[in-house]
């Protein structure tokens, strides 16, 4: 079975980023060595839309980050973004634009000011499969 195992430190950084940008959507990447499925490096990305209902990586920043990953032998293991008023489940928009077949798509919801929902999915050819998240202490 597919699971996402994520170090506590990276989990906390994603939640902190989502909280910080609330009520706008926050987005970013966890990079890891290619082929290992191990997220190791946190990269907060700019939401070029600065919107509470939409996100898009800034294209210039994405180019540089993808280039760095390529140079380091890394790949985007996790692509995360937040929903700030709805549940942490991929929307129709999320599904139609999902373009990294190997990535874990992490959705964080900050709709509740205390409890943060943190869930992970594979999105492939329009099909969403949720997977358990294990936080490694």
């Amino acid at each position, binding site marked *: 079975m597919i699971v996402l195992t994520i170090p506590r430190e990276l989990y906390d950084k994603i939640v902190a980023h989502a909280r910080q940008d609330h009520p706008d*959507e926050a*987005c970013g990447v966890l990079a890891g060595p290619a082929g290992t499925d191990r997220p190791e490096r946190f990269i907060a*990305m700019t939401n070029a*839309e600065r*919107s*509470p*209902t*939409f*996100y*898009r*990586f800034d*294209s*210039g920043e*994405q*180019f*540089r980050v*993808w*280039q760095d990953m390529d140079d380091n032998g890394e790949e985007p293991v996790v*692509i995360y*973004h937040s*929903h*700030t*008023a*709805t549940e942490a489940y*991929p*929307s129709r*928009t*999320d599904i139609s*634009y*999902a*373009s*990294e*077949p*190997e990535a874990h798509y992490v959705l964080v919801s900050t709709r509740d000011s205390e409890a943060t929902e943190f869930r992970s999915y594979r999105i492939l050819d329009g099909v969403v499969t949720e997977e358990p998240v294990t936080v490694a202490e």
Partner: protein
Amino acid sequence: MAIEVRIPTILRTYTDGAKQVEGTGSTLGELFSDLEQRHGGLQDRLIEGGGLRRFVNVYLNDEDVRFLDGLDTPVKDGDTVTVLPAVAGGAR
């Protein structure tokens, strides 16, 4: 010499799995037409209604071609063109 084109994972079904391919042309649009000869179907994933698809980023060397001339951007031997799917979505 030719123009090197880097292909993202999701489009490698059109290039027999190749991470990069080569093509020729004097503009980006011509380059894509040239690639289409050998990698049928690729062009349709890049272009829509005579322009670049909205959620595909294309870079000439390190510049987003949307800030250059789009499909009319001049290209030359030795250039590198990188295609990356935009990472986007949202609650609505």
